[in-house]
Structures are given as C-alpha cells and as structure tokens.
C-alpha cells in the first residue's frame, strides 16, 4: 500500500498547489462571463468549457478547490473533534452521564436544524462578504454534524474501556488524561477517521444545499458544491463530459484522502 498512498499524497499536493496557483493557472478570472459562449464545449480558450453563464469552468474549478479543499476538511475536523470529545467523555464516564449525553445526542439528531440555519441567515447582515459567509456555513456544518458519530464513538469507548489493554494500563497506574490520550484515543482512530473521511464530501455537498437558505458560498465565488449543481438538472442528460470534471475531481480527492489516512495493514 506504500505506492498508492504516496501517489495519493502527491495527487493531493498537486491539487492543493493548483488551487493556490489558481491566479496563474486559470485561463480567466472565475467571475468573468463570456456571454457569447455559454455552455460551450472544451476548447483551447476554455479547456473545460464554460458554464451556463459563460464562465470558464477550469478557472472556477481551480478557485473552487481553495474553498472546498480548505474549509470542508476544517469543518470535518471540527465535527470529528466534537464527536470524539462528547462521545468519548460519555463512554468513558459511563452510567447516568452516558445515558444523559446519549439522550441529548438522540434529541440533537431529531431536531429540524433547517430552522436554526434560517434563523442564522436572518441574523447575519445581507451584505456579508462571500468569504465570511462561507466560513460561517462550514462552521455551522461542523457544529451540527457530530451527533451520529458521537454515538459510535461512545459505544466504541465503552467497549475499549472494558478491554484488556485498558485494564492493564489502569493497573500500571495510568489514569485520567494520560489514559485517555495515550491509550484510548489511538484506539478510537478507526472510528474517528471514518467520520472525518465521510464528512468531507458530505459537507461539500451540504454547502450547496444551504444556498437555498441564503447561506453557502455566495456568487460569484465558486465551490465544488456549486459546480456540482450543474449536474442537478434535466439537461444532465445532454451534459458534456467537461461538466463532470468537478465530480471526478471530488471523487479523486476524497479517495486520495482515504488512502493517505490509512494505516499500514497489520
């Protein structure tokens, strides 16, 4: 698995570098509308064609990578940390504490958070900068996405606490934070990595759905989610291959994240 992992890391590096050098690599500004050639196929001027408003798709993909590649993993990290903290604490404490926290988690999973998001939008000024809007969006996603994973972390922690190695660690005099950090947390990695890996594309896709609430990435700033919206219509049946570029890039990037994060097999 060493070579595929290396290739994955190189690919991620290339994607990151391309997005950082978008100003140099992009054939045109991401907001510029070439209104004479909307929905154009690939050409020398527009290697990935243009979108429905005549904007260069490659430029928007490069700039959109910055938003999605930076903020989605950050939001995924927030979710994972929250899930680890809440689920881990509940599972470690056990008893009524675990019951209480897990009941709260179940309640959290059931509530219609759509209305909280609508309220957040109402509280924000209308003229919020696109970048601020994006950061707030992903922060919200990060803060709302932990509940399901917390349950799994709690169950896992509970099991691990009763395992032999934890018993031995306690018997050796380990307790409190040391026990948590050095013995429990490393064994929670499989669950936490799973949560992290799942959250990245989920948040990228959720961001675009939040645009119906006035959140999400505001025009003309592109993101992978907004680029994927092109495929969500009847005209997908006659879609040009270049329109699938954001989807292919997302799949490739998430796969590479997965490969890069894997442990060596036992």
């Amino acid at each position: 698995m060493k070579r595929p992992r290396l290739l994955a890391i190189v690919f991620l590096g290339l994607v990151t570098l391309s997005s950082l050098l978008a100003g140099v690599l992009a054939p045109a500004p991401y907001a510029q509308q070439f209104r004479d050639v909307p929905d154009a196929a690939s050409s020398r001027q527009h290697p990935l064609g243009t979108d429905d408003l005549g904007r260069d798709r490659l430029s928007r993909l490069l700039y959109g990578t910055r938003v999605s590649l930076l903020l989605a993993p950050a939001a995924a990290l927030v979710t994972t940390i929250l899930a680890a903290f809440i689920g881990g604490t509940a599972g470690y404490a056990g008893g009524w504490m675990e019951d209480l926290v897990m009941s709260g988690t179940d309640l959290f999973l059931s509530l219609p958070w759509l209305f909280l998001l609508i309220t957040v939008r109402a509280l924000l000024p209308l003229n919020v900068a696109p970048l601020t809007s994006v950061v707030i969006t992903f922060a919200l996603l990060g803060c709302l996405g932990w509940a399901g994973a917390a349950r799994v972390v709690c169950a896992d922690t509970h099991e691990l606490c009763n395992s032999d190695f934890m018993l031995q660690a306690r018997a050796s005099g380990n307790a409190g934070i040391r026990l948590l950090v050095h013995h429990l947390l490393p064994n929670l990695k499989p669950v936490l990595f799973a949560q992290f890996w799942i959250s990245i594309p989920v948040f990228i896709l959720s961001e675009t759905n939040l645009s119906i609430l006035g959140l999400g990435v505001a025009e003309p700033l592109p993101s992978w989610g907004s680029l994927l919206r092109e495929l969500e219509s009847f005209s997908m049946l006659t879609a040009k291959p270049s329109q699938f570029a954001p989807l292919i890039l997302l799949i490739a990037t998430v796969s590479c994240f997965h490969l890069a994060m894997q442990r060596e097999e036992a």
Partner: protein
Amino acid sequence: MSSLFRCATKTVILIFLGGLMGATLVRFAPGYGVTEEELDSRLNGESLRALRASHEPPRDLMRFYLQFGGKLLHGDLGFSSAMREPVSQLIAERFPETMKSIGFSVALGWAAGLSLAILSVTARSATVDLGTSLVATIALCTPAAVLALLCVIAQAPGRLVIAAIIFPKVFQYARNLLLRSAALPHVLAASARGIRASRIFLWHILPVAAPQLLAVAGITVSMAFTAAIPVEALCDIPGIGQLAWKAALARDLELLVMLTMIVTTVTLLANSTAELLGKVVVAGKA
C-alpha cells in the same frame, strides 16, 4: 421493571422535549406566519389583513404547546395548514410509505456496505480495498439530486438514493472497525492455529466489532430519516419526508411538531435497540 419504567419515562420526556424544541425552532425562524398568497395583487386591503390574521403566529408558545399536548392526549394530532388535512390522516397515509423506504434502504445500504467492508477486510488485497473504497467514494460524492435523477432515468425506485447515501457510511465504519478487530492478537493466534478464515471472521472478528456496528446501525436509521426528506421531495415519494419538506417550506407548526416527535421516537427506539443488542452481545461474550 423499574428500569423499564425509567426507560419508558425517559423516552416520553425526550419525545415531548423534542417536540417543544422543534416548535421553538420553527416558531422563531423567519418567515413564520407569512404566506405567498399575500403577493396576490387581486386581494384588497381588507382581504389581505384577514389573510395575515389567519396566519398570525401563536403569541405564547408554551401555551400553544400545552394546548397541543392536551389535544395529543385526546388523540387529536392537530390540523395541517399546508396540506389542509388532519395531521393524523396525513401521517397514517404516509408513514407506511416512509417506513417501507427506510426499511428497504437501510437493509440495502447495510447489505451493500457490510458486504464490501467484509470483502475489503477478508480479501487482504490492496486492489480490492481500493476498488471497494472507490465504489463507496463515488456514492458518497454524488449529489442526492443527481442520484435521484439517475434513478428516475433508470426507472428505479427513489429509495435506492437513500440506500446510496447510507451505504458508504456503513462501509467506512464497518471496514475500519473490522480491520481493527482483524489486527488484534487473538485473531493472529487463531489464524496460526489453522482455523478457517470464515470461522475466524464470524467468531473472532465480527463479535469484537459488533457493539460498535450495532451503534452504527442505530444511527443509520436516523440518517435514513434525514436523507428521506430531500430524497422524497426530489423523487416525489409520498412519504413523511416529503411531508416534512413541504411543512418546513410552509412553516406548518402543528405538522412539524408532530413530525419532529415521530423522528425523535424512531431515533430513540433505533438507538436504544442498538444499545440493548450491544449489551446482549457483550454479555454473551462474557
């Protein structure tokens, strides 16, 4: 008996709390109490004022909730302003449809996710692992709206979309948990003793990961419910997910409170069952 009573009491309290919190979120969200009929230029001032008065939000939410609770105890689930039907009728018509969708999609999602996870773990091949991960990644990265359109094009049931949303999550959790279990010393010992691979998997790997897998099973039910809302709306499946979407757009308070309570009930039941089964498995191992 007392623990059963405590559990039942806790469940009832949580369900009502869920309803109250849901009602609060809906009531104080912007757009509550307005209707698009207000933009009808045919309406004169008097009619417009009457229309607005008829959508006036309840001033005292606690009072509304107590009255709602009182009606609920008498079996009256309220009246939906969006669908113009009693809530009980709407739920009776649509709940079975959603339960069928969720049952189908959770079963299919688990069958696919767990199968691929087991294949990935047992094959011990980097190519197989890559292939299975790629399949899961494709499902995870494709927007639900695109999957819905593909289902419609293929004349496949929209429920497949919910299954496609669940399966990569099941796959990833299951894969990682099973891999961890497979790396434990006792598995190595069993392998060294020449025990068959399938027996090792069924008796030594799976049971170790079972409590966590059951926890994942619990959350996939609530995941399926959450996914059902946009999927039923996209594919026009007449279930409670579609109802929830329409109720949300119309800010239909009574219907949304009821739906929140239903979702809370199902989530609690699923997760409690998963927890209980997990304890049974652990007790069995002991």
